[in-house]
Structure formats: C-alpha cells, structure tokens
C-alpha cells in the first residue's frame, strides 16, 4: 500500500484564504473588544478566556475562544506559561549533563527525550552503541510508552467524568514507575539513557519484574474496555467529536496518535526504524474517523502493542556491555580508578569538562507517545552543544486544536484538549 492512498495531498481547509479556525488576535486586541458574558442583552459573539489554570487544560494551557452561544467558532491556544528557556539552558550544559535538561521537557515520557538527545549526540560522535544497551533502551522506552498512555487514560477519563478511570490509570502507572525507580533510581526525570548507552545495567531480577508487570497490566486493559470502550455514554461523548482528516493532520504537522487516528499508518518505529524496532513484531494502530474516540482507542491499543514488544525484548536482551567501551565518552570502571592515576584523571575530565563532539549538525527523531520527538544539535567541536533544539510533538500538535474545536461545543472542547494529550512542559520548554 502506498502512503498516497491514505494521505491525499493538499490542505484546502486550513488555508488562510478560507475562513479560518484560528483566532489570530493579540491579547490586547481581545481585551479591547471582548463582549460581556454577564450581560444578557449582549448577544454578539463572545470572547471567552479559558485557563491557564483550568482543571481540564493539562497544566497551564490557555485558550481564547470566540463563541456564539455555546458553539466555538474560532480559538487560539495561548502558551508560554511554563517557558523556562530550556533550549538556552542546553547551550550551557555539556553533552553528559544535557540529558538532565531535556528529560524535564515531556515529563510524562522522559526517557524518550533522553533517547532523542542521545541519538543526536551519537550521530555527531559517530559511535556505535552495544546491542545490550540498545535493547535496554527499547525496553525502557516501551514501558515508558505504557506509563505515558496510562496517564492519558487516567486524565482522559477524569476530564470526561469517568473519575474511577483516573484512579485505575494512576494505579497501573505507579507499578511501571516503581520498576523505573528500581532501575534508574528515580520515578521520573531519570537521566538514564545517556550518550554512549545507559547509565546502569538492569537489576539481576529484571525479567521477573517485567513479566509481572505484563501479567498485571494486560488484564486491567480488558477491564478498561468493559468500563469505557463499549459503554454508550463514553461513546456518545467521544464519537464524532473533534474530527480531523489525514490531509489536514499532515498539513498542520501533526504526528503520533492524531495522525494515526485520522487513518494514516505512520509510525517512525516501523517506517524509519531506529534501535532494533525492525527486529520485533508489532502492529501500527490506525483509526478511521479521526475523532476523539479513535485517538482514545489508539492509545489504549498501543499499550497492548508496547506490552507485546516488551515481552519479545525479555527474550532478546543479550549479555554484554550496557554502554560503549569508547573511552572518549565512557569513564573508566570504578576498579581502574583505584589503581591508575591516568584513569582517575580521565574520569575527572569526563565529568568536569565533558567529552568533545566533532563540529557539525545532526537531527535525530524517535516516535514518542505523542508523535515525532526530534532533537537538532549543532556542535562547534567543544564539549557543550552550540545549539539544542527540540522538536516537541505536543507543541506542533497543539496547532490542530482550533481546527478540532471549530463548530463544536465548549464541553466537547474539554474532550478534544484531552485527546490531543499535550504535555505543557514540552510545549513551552
């Protein structure tokens, strides 16, 4: 099947020449003309502010909505409330420290940030990572996809009034985070995947732990099906809400579940395999209608696919090094430091100055739970990147929001924000 069949070219509906879904208006302009929502005599269009601290906005997303009655005509996401200049900070940290910075961007799937940053650095360095390290990276990332989608299940349920789903999603996610804590020492923001490999080897009994996780989560997914998927209220609330076509999604730069929900089978793990994704079996889940229900169903079933990949990884991880033996990027082992002055100096140098990376530029992309997460690095030959740019999937996906919300109700807007699943830490960086 060629991709053109599923993604017809052209993006007429989102062209500027057509009536737009995006409210292109500054805050000052909005303040000057906004109608008075409390005045019953004012039946003109109303500009309504929603957020930034609104329970359904997943952090600090603010929306300017142009309303006619309860119907949303145009809207504009106003972002930047979490902007802390992380790309600027990245220009002051060495490549070894960089992971601690980028991991905080998409805090629901921190390992993907670290992976993309490490892959870009390794591309500049031109080094190979040992097979065991690559399998460990895949294992951790797929488990992270599970925990991230479980977080989506929890918040999506909560936003739509299925409050028990929030507790269930949180409960299962916690089990995954417990395993992360055992491996990396931290529940979130691990700094575990580093240029050259991973920070530490897996604990001795990791296979038992991971098998237990799979056994625990799989039947719970069937419970979610009973609780939500087939339930008429849930379907009524999501089906036909927030529709986007594949052509629109491509034109607006959307990736991940939004693009797949619109019917386009595009997953970097399959279409541009990195790590060892070409050696495992999994299906790319695709929707048909591009509505909130499809995006929900895709994420639920992607948890199943991730568990399927994890089960294959358990048998596939070989013995060997968990980080490269290239002495340029990997410090000498602890035992060598006691007997060799040079090893001690080498260790000290790597952690103070950092390792030098050849000048040039490189881009590396991975399929994060939210879409294509890319890191663009420019090196000037020193141990600190000259420029760190992160292509955050949530930031680009947020552009679809006005198009999804147009002509819908405000109440559906809450379902739509939830189904886009933006992580504001990565939107604002």
């Amino acid at each position: 099947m060629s991709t053109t069949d599923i993604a017809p070219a052209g993006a007429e509906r989102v062209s500027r020449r057509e009536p737009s879904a995006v409210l292109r208006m500054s805050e000052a302009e909005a303040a000057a003309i906004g109608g008075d929502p409390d005045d019953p005599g004012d039946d003109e269009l109303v500009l309504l502010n929603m957020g930034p601290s609104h329970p359904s906005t997943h952090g600090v997303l603010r929306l300017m909505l142009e309303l006619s009655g309860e119907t949303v005509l145009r809207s504009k996401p106003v972002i930047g409330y979490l902007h802390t200049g992380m790309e600027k900070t990245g220009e002051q940290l060495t490549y070894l420290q960089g992971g601690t910075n980028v991991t905080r961007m998409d805090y629901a799937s921190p390992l993907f940030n670290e992976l993309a940053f490490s892959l870009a650095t390794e591309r500049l360095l031109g080094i190979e990572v040992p097979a065991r390290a690559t399998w460990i990276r895949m294992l951790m990332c797929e488990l992270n996809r599970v925990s991230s989608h479980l977080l989506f299940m929890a918040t999506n349920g909560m936003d739509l009034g299925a409050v028990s789903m929030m507790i269930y999603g949180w409960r299962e996610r916690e089990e995954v985070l417990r395993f992360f804590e055992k491996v990396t020492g931290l529940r979130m923001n691990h700094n575990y995947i580093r240029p050259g490999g991973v920070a530490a080897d897996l604990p001795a009994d990791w296979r038992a732990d991971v098998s237990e996780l799979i056994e625990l989560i799989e039947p719970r997914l069937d419970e979610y099906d009973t609780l939500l998927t087939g339930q008429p209220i849930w379907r009524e609330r999501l089906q036909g809400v927030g529709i986007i076509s594949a052509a629109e999604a491509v034109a607006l730069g959307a990736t991940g579940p939004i693009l797949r929900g619109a019917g386009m089978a595009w997953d970097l793990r399959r279409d541009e395999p990195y790590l060892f994704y070409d050696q495992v079996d999994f299906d790319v889940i695709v929707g048909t209608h591009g509505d909130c229900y499809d995006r929900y169903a895709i994420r639920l079933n992607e948890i199943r696919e991730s568990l399927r990949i994890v089960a294959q990884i358990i048998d596939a991880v070989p013995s060997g090094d968990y980080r490269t033996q290239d002495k340029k990027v990997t410090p000498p082992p602890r035992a060598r430091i006691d007997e060799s002055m040079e090893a001690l100096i080498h260790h000290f140098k790597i952690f103070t100055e950092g390792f030098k990376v050849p000048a040039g530029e490189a881009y590396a992309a991975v399929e994060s739970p939210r879409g294509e997460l890319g890191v663009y690095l420019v090196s000037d030959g020193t141990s600190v990147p000259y420029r760190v740019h992160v292509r955050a999937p949530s930031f680009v996906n947020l552009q679809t929001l006005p198009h999804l919300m147009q002509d819908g109700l405000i109440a559906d807007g809450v379902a739509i924000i939830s189904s886009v699943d933006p992580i504001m830490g990565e939107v604002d960086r």
Partner: protein
Amino acid sequence: MAERYGAPVGGDRPSRGQAVIHPSPSQWLDVAAAVRADGFDQLIDFTAVDYLTYGADRSLPEGVQPERFEVVASLMSHERRERLRMRVQVPADDPTLPTLFDLWPGSESLEREVYDMFGIAFEGHPDLSRILMPEDWPGYPLRKDYDSGRIPVQFKAASNVR
C-alpha cells in the same frame, strides 16, 4: 557542485548521512515550492541557529555566503519515507524571510517561535507575534548576544528564621 531543486547540496562535511540543501534567501520560496511539489508533504521541524560566536568551520558548500542567522527546515516525504533539510542563510542586518505558511500551514507556530526567539520576521505570515514569551518582551532570548542571567532574581530570606 551538486544541485537539487536548484540549490547547492551538502557541505564539505556530509551532514551525518542526512540530505541537506542550501537555498539562498531569494530562492527560499521557489525551492520550497519545488520540494513541496516533489512529495515532501509535511514540515516536520523549523528552527534557527545564531552563528554569531561559532568557533568552528561552518563548512558550507561553495557559493553559499555565511551569515549570522541560519534558518533550518526539516521536511518529510511520507510516500518515499525520506527526509530533507533546508538551511538558508539570513543576514543580521535584514533578518526576514518569506513565510512557508502557504505551502505547509503547520509552519505557523514554528515560525512564530523562531520570530519570538531570534527576531527573524516572516513576510506574509498570518499572525507574526510572540508565542512563548510575553507580548511586550524586549529582546530575542535565543540570540547569542542575549545573556542568560541578565534578569536579576531576588531571593528573599525567610522572615521568621529561628
């Protein structure tokens, strides 16, 4: 010199196996339209780099005049599963480029981010305004002559120290 879409290809140093073309600012829209017509249906990423203090050799292809700013657009062809990067030199005294909005509407917030962070203006953009920084913010934070730590932060001691 290799040419593709009428723009110089690559540098002295291959960019880690990734295809790169270097259109000039005046070619920018024409090359972008040719690239779009050739099946690159999605603008994946769009950013800029300020090369003001860059110490190493830029290794641009012959005939490309290095300038302070460089705008980098990453494109994806889903049909051919192929990526292409376009790097264009933008002079410091006239940091403007035509917008890619009409070719890829997804460039809207990405171009706003570059405008916000680097002060590069995109002619014809439907809503060229700051996106991450406050609307009245002075300066462009990701420029190399914009120091970090320039805004003093006041740390207050606890008033009731026992």
